[in-house]
């Protein structure tokens, strides 16, 4: 059985930028453990000779041609921004540059 600890839950919550209360953490330790437990169950199957499923869609090669289509007017693009100067989306000052 896979084990999920509270630290695992906190780590994943941190990556997802979620703040969880203690009760939720406890609940998720159980729920995520169940999910991994189910994976263990699936792992019991003998999959020798079966091609791995890399993607759930069976369709392939859906393309668009390289053609420019109209963009949004800028005021529409910025309409829902929490903060804007009319040109940019404004965010709290970023110190390091990715």
């Amino acid at each position: 059985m896979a084990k999920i600890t509270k630290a695992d839950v906190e780590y994943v919550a941190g990556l997802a930028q979620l703040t969880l209360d203690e009760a939720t953490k406890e609940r998720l330790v159980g729920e995520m453990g169940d999910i991994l437990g189910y994976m263990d169950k699936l792992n019991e199957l003998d999959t020798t000779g079966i091609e791995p499923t890399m993607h759930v869609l069976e369709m392939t090669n859906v393309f668009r041609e390289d053609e420019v289509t109209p963009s949004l007017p800028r005021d529409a693009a910025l309409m829902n921004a929490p903060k804007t100067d009319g040109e940019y989306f404004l965010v709290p000052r970023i110190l390091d540059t990715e």
Partner: protein
Amino acid sequence: MKYEAVIGMEVHVELNTQSKVFCGCSTKFDAPANTNVCPICLGMPGVLPVINKRAVELSVAVGIALNCTISRWSKMDRKNYFYPDLAKNYQISQYDLPLCANGCLEIQVNGSTKRIGITRAHLEEDTARNTHTIGGGDSGVDFNRCGVPLLEIVTEPDIRSAEEAYAYLTSLKQILRYLDVSDCNMEEGSLRAEANISIRPVGSKEFGSKTEVKNVASFSGVQKAIDFEIARQQQVIEGGGQVVQETRGWDADKGITFSQRAKESAHDYRYFPEPDLVPLVVDEAWEAQIAATLPELPRARKARFVSQYQLSEYDSGVLTAERPMADYYETTVQCGVPAKPAANWIMGDLQALLTEHKLEIGACKVTPENLASMIALIEDGTISGKIAKDLLPELFATGKSAKALVEEKGLVQISDTSELEAVAREIIASNPGPVADFRGGKEKALGFLVGQMMKATKGKANPQMANDIIRKELAKTE
């Protein structure tokens, strides 16, 4: 102890499609902020990306040119992270099945050839651009760049010196430019290079802790940053310390790298298959079709210039450095002028004019046909090389044909013996001093007298004939 550097390069290159990789917004570089954006590249909920076929084809073309295996089956994945350069909190990239893998690029350093392994080249979307000059405690985000197709090309840790890294970058850029997949403009960010650098004692098989140097604005900057990092890491180790794995920036003014951010833990991007995009299948037929569009690549072309035109390695290298220049040269030669003079004129006077006027060969008003006709006029004795040297800047400025300009300005070389004899006699009569010097055995004086003949004919005298005739005249009147 002696150390060796272990370096791997990551190059991000923006592919020059018209539209973005997953939506139809324009990829134009200098548009006003947030005007080339739509619900898809802004990451609005519920939208569906559709991949740009051209972006896939350009990626495959690069893969073929870099001797990669092209994946018959590949897919896009989500790379999850929070940063205000992507609105949807993930970047669509490729994780375990990149379009191109296991290639190599041969570079030349100090006259020897070295093979640099290419681990992979994968397609992804570029991110938004952040600007920090807004003020008021804010940074601005411009999504115009977000979604521009980006190819990330990753090498094996095969590079051993800053010089090799420079040669790799130069060679890679040359190929990308030949393929015309990107303008590779570092100032505009369409090519970005990062170096992963570590050092280890010579002979050791293990890798040391590496630092990643990014945000360097030029290839020579990368070279300097690597040299600096190698020396810095050696100093740290010899001082009994340990190299911290981190990202470092490059301060070009001070010539130093500086710590940007320690990697406390390896990034956990939680990649998973992008469910909104279907897998990509590049079958043999499609790969062959793309391969057939590839031009002759720089190394092959250089070798052919040496054998076909009997040019030196050096001349061939200069002429094939950029594809438009190589095309220009070949078009000139195909007009029927000899290969060597054509090379000399292009690499010499024409290149000097281009440099002086900060022009690319593509914007040059002297067409290859016109340059060829000027060279033909020299070859058949109509004009002298000297006249041609004066003529070229005018051709360059006006775009007029060499023939028309020669006729218009009456520059046709004087090859008429009796006319030149008359000029020679005049020069002899009016320069008794140098004439006496020459007759007294000073060969040098002849040069002066020939010069006077050229001057008297405004440079139009056929120099070889002028030389012969004045000698004869000097002998006669003795």
